[in-house]
């Protein structure tokens, strides 16, 4: 006897199913020869299901659980695609789902007529009416309703076999839904109507234990604590084995004969629905837009050949003959490989998109291994010269592999939606969709939804969630016993039953899919059959999005193009635009020379704030030690500052070699040319490939294949044998082989693709160039597009340091962008309206549209700001010039203005009339005088509260007296101190990082900004324990510790303790100042 589960929800039925498709299939493969996946509202888990089925030799069956609207009301039914029909079933299923998601309701639902229309005369799907259909819900209560509804379905689906009754017995209370009695009634209904019946278990989880997780998911779906909504009836909806299902069949039918018939008809439908992945889903068959969609008549390969050859003179003008031969040779090699793999159309497609983006005057850069291809460089997809930078094509694409390569392109983030729309227009809606992304439960999300299920207070959950750093939810219990910031929670949970439960259910939720959203950059480009192969749903952007995620692309043979919006590209484009608008300077950022000494000098100061990729505290520290002088140094630095190289302790030998502290060790003279650039340290994938090639004589393509296999334990010994044998045969000594192999073996997680590093280094250099030569425009770009990791207020600090002038918000000049303004003293940045808290977009738009204003009343009448906005604008001085109180000799002050504004707002502005002047609202001479003006401190507080930025001076200034008394050191003075000096630093927290370390122990880096620069403090175990919850929570901190020199311009602080600066200030002001406490602490530690 056999049985197949035909109704199975995986975890991709978000907030419903509990187990991943892969786990379900592996478990099923021991007992079943086929398994269905029928996720709610989509095929979200289908590709993973099919992949797992292929790997485990189980026949895949795919369907969906979907709502259908009939004349009688709404029914949720299972729709299964029939297989082995050249994809007709799969395509109908996809189109039904896509249609349901176009519904005008909030939820996906398809009307009966639309369903019938898609199924057509020859339906290739079966529809199962079960417990969630009107038929199933009414069968025990209202036989007339049941009969009515069933006749609607029978009349709509005439072909035998397309309508099926689903019989499910979840052993619920007798007489209720999914009870034995209910199942029996469904079976009888099928018999009376001469419809086939199938037995299912409406599976939501793999094992009974998972039912508890399902309870928590139900709570998250209902957004209600457990107990406030209808619970699942029990824990029976699991993937029961054949014997259990046979027993249920017998209990339901009470007759061996009928039980067998039920199981037979279940097996019959299962057989009909077994899919052939290749012929039904076009599994693994690469799909690219058709030639005509690309506007090509000739053979695509010939077009590619011609286009890339003719671009040589563009990319390499005035090249010498020998070099030209080299270029042509490499190009031929790449083109032959591309042709062999049949990817010519793919490259033409990406080039076409790149050209389209450039035609739209949008900045574009390649990222990833694609920068290693000369073809990409010549086609304008990438801006990095792979020959000059020593990048290898084989790392990107090789004939040893046939998966579609990834070419990722970065564009201006602010304009990426424009690009997506243009791609849809160019290739047509039948060939393009956006890509989706499943976000999964991580620590904080899991603890929040777990807390919700248990009915904990929001603040309580918040407190716990805030302290969850850098561990996965499944290790919650382990983490809370180890991490100081969770110590209090750990002890609370011993006393508190609910908190203890919270730990367990948080662990259960870890990694489960949570919700689907648009992938931030993925676009699928297919041929005209794309919508037969993937279901789509609307995205927030209004463009359709595939239900498949990035991991589904390769198996489905879809070409995914990553068009990633990068804010830095927007910021740079903005700076270039402002330079042209204000000064008529034309900057060709993509053609600037990459060897400007001023740019490297600027980088070497370590004031890298705002520079792409190297502004983080860690990169800043590394910049201080590294002192880059050329483009390749940037590539190296970006590649080195990663978890792998840091864990592998590669940075120190590299720096020692570079600064002449140690003699680089090349192991063998043959390796010197390969490793010279990195002083003997193997940093890049490309270097490893060249070493393999040199020492074994294999091709670079083969070398890359072996490099990829190093990550797979099962293959390492094969590679080792090959390497040792071949190197020995080529005459390398045993000791050289030994040493090189130990590097190769450990390389897996350490190395980085040089092409990727070089692709990143380009915007790094470009942004540094702008910061060096156009600081005002660059700061304006950074403030407008906010590309970095730091708060804007820190950028203002950097502007002050650079001597870039900042002009205050002014309703007559400010817009939603940080404009560059010409002043008598040179260019300056005008603060924008967009950072004023609580100000609506229409309010901002009205101000921009109505500028300029003649006086306050005119402003109030035409810009129509809310009372609150009006007050806020007053408080931050945005109305000062308009009110004529900007000068120091003005009779009135901001407090006077506020009084006036409040009076003004008390009157209702009349409808706008162009002829009516603003006299009656009161002209300026009515401005009161004599109110007590705001202090500098109050003005600063207003700025911080309203804009989040300390525009007039740095926030830390107000503590200065106390800090001076304490002897607190300024960040820019640290560099002058000896190593191991006891110091106190204070400032605003601007970054907190916990990178993975070599030892496996956690280290916390906190950067404080005090207006003169950043002080970076490192907290090890003991220090973390001392300041526990302060570590991740307080914004204003005082840190004590010792200086640690890390390089020529690198200093960091080895932290010993930290205090809440506001608390100290409070104590200091009250005279109960605990300086002694700090001091005694310092003394103990010395």
């Amino acid at each position, binding site marked *: 006897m056999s049985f197949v589960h035909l109704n199975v929800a995986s975890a991709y039925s978000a907030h419903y199913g509990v187990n991943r498709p892969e786990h379900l299939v592996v478990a099923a493969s021991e007992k079943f020869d086929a398994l269905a996946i029928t996720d709610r509202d989509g095929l979200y888990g289908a590709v993973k299901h099919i992949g797992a089925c292929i790997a485990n030799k189980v026949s895949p069956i795919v369907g969906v659980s979907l709502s259908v609207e009939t004349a009688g009301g709404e029914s949720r039914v299972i729709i299964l695609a029939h297989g082995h029909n050249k994809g007709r079933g799969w395509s109908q299923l996809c189109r039904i789902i896509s249609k349901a998601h176009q519904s005008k309701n909030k939820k996906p639902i398809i009307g009966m007529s639309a369903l019938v229309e898609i199924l057509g005369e020859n339906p290739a799907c079966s529809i199962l009416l079960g417990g969630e259909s009107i038929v199933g819900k009414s069968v025990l209560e209202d036989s007339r309703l049941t009969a009515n509804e069933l006749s609607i379905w029978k009349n709509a689906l005439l072909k035998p076999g397309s309508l099926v009754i689903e019989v499910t017995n*979840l*052993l*619920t*209370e*007798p007489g209720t839904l999914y*009870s*034995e009695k209910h199942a029996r009634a469904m079976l009888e209904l099928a018999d009376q109507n001469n419809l086939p019946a199938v037995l299912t278990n409406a599976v939501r989880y793999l*094992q*009974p*234990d*998972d*039912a*508890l*997780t399902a*309870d928590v998911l139900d709570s998250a779906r209902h957004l209600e604590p*457990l*107990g406030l909504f209808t*619970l*699942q*009836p*029990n*824990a*029976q909806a699991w993937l029961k084995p054949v014997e259990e299902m046979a*027993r249920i069949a017998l209990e339901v039918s009470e007759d061996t004969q009928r039980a067998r018939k039920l199981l037979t008809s279940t097996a019959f439908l299962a057989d009909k629905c077994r899919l052939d992945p290749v012929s039904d889903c076009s599994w693994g068959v690469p799909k690219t837009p058709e030639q005509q969609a690309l506007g090509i008549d000739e053979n695509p390969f010939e077009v590619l050949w011609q286009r890339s050859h003719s671009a040589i003179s563009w990319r390499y003008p005035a090249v010498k003959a020998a070099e030209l031969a080299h270029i042509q040779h490499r190009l031929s090699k790449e083109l032959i490989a591309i042709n062999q793999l049949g990817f010519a159309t793919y490259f033409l497609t990406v080039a076409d998109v790149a050209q389209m983006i450039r035609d739209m005057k949008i900045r574009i850069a390649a990222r990833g291994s694609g920068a290693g291809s000369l073809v990409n460089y010549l086609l304008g997809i990438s801006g990095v010269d792979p020959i000059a930078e020593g990048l290898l094509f084989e790392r990107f694409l090789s004939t040893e592999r046939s998966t579609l390569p990834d070419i990722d392109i970065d564009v201006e983030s602010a304009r990426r939606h424009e690009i997506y729309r243009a791609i849809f227009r160019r290739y047509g809606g039948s060939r393009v969709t956006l890509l989706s992304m499943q976000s999964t439960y991580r620590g904080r999300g899991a603890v929040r939804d777990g807390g919700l*299920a*248990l*009915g904990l207070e929001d603040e309580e959950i918040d407190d716990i969630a805030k302290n969850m750093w850098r561990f996965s939810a499944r290790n919650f219990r382990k983490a809370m016993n180890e991490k100081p910031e969770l110590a209090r929670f750990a002890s609370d949970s011993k006393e508190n*039953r609910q908190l*203890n*439960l919270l*730990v*367990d*259910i948080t*662990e*259960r939720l870890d990694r489960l899919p949570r919700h689907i959203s648009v992938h931030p950059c993925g676009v699928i480009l297919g041929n005209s059959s794309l919508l037969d192969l993937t279901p789509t749903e609307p995205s927030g952007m209004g463009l359709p999005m595939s239900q498949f995620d990035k991991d589904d692309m390769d198996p489905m043979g879809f070409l995914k193009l990553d068009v990633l919006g990068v804010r830095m590209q927007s910021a740079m484009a903005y700076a270039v635009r402002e330079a042209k608008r204000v000064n008529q300077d034309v900057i060709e950022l993509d053609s600037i020379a990459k060897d400007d000494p001023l740019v490297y000098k600027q980088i070497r100061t370590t004031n890298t704030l705002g520079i792409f990729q190297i502004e983080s505290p860690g990169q800043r520290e590394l910049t201080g030690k590294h002192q880059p002088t050329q483009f390749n140094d940037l590539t190296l630095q970006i590649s080195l500052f990663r978890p792998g190289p840091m864990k592998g302790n590669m940075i120190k030998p590299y720096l020692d070699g570079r600064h002449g502290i140690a003699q680089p060790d090349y192991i063998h003279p043959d390796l010197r040319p390969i490793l010279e650039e990195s002083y003997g340290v193997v940093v890049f994938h490309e270097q490893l490939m060249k070493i393999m090639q040199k020492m074994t004589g294999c091709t670079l393509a083969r070398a890359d294949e072996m490099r990829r296999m190093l990550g797979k334990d099962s293959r390492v010994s094969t590679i080792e044998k090959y390497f040792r044998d071949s190197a020995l045969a080529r005459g390398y000594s045993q000791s050289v082989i030994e040493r090189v192999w130990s590097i190769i073996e450990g390389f897996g997680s350490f190395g980085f693709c040089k092409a990727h590093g070089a692709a990143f280094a380009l915007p790094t250099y470009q942004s540094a160039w702008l910061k060096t030569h156009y600081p005002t425009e660059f700061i304006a770009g950074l403030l407008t597009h906010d590309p970095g990791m730091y708060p804007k207020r820190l950028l203002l600090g950097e502007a002050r340091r650079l001597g870039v002038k900042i002009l205050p918000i002014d309703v007559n000049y400010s817009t939603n962008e940080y404009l560059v303004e010409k002043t008598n003293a040179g260019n300056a940045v005008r603060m924008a309206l967009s950072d004023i808290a609580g100000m609506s977009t229409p309010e901002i738009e009205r101000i921009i549209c109505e500028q300029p204003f003649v006086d306050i009343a005119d402003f109030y009448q035409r810009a129509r700001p809310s009372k609150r906005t009006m007050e806020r604008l007053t408080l931050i001085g945005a109305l000062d010039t308009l009110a004529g109180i900007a000068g120091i000799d003005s009779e009135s002050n901001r407090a006077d203005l506020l009084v006036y504004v409040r009076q003004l707002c008390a009157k209702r502005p009349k409808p706008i009339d162009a002829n009516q002047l603003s006299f009656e609202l009161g002209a300026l001479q009515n401005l009161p005088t004599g109110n007590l003006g705001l202090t500098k401190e109050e003005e600063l507080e207003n700025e911080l509260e309203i804009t989040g930025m300390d525009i007039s001076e740095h926030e830390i200034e107000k503590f200065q007296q106390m800090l001076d008394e304490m002897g607190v050191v300024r960040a820019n003075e640290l560099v002058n101190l000896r190593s191991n000096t006891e110091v106190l630093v204070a400032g605003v927290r601007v970054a907190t990082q916990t990178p993975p370390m070599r030892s496996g122990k956690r280290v916390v880096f906190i950067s404080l900004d005090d207006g003169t620069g950043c002080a970076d403090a490192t907290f090890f175990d003991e220090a973390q324990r001392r300041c526990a919850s302060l570590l991740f929570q307080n914004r204003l901190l005082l840190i004590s510790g010792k200086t640690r020199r890390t390089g020529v311009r690198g200093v960091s602080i080895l932290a010993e303790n930290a205090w809440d600066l506001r608390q100290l200030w409070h104590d200091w002001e009250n005279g109960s100042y605990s300086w002694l406490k700090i001091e005694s602490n310092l003394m103990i530690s010395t």
Partner: protein
Amino acid sequence: MQQVVTGVVLDPDGAPISFTFENRHYLVSSRPVRWYSRKIWWQQAQSAPKGVGSALVEVEMWRLWATSEFDRIFLELRHQQPDGVWEIYRIDS
């Protein structure tokens, strides 16, 4: 205090055949119907580690008629886990 039945004898499928209640010996006289009811674990459980989920979520129930020398009663029995105690959930005579 929950009323408890003792000396429960089961068939190979786990269905009760006979038991003792208030010193009377009962034989099950109908086809007993097995079903599973809910438990409100979030109000009771101390912890919910992997493996104990189903025992926290549901409880096995049997609906049956039973006959003794003296009477015939309708019963709903609850089979508690993990201690295996059989409790009377509902009784009608």
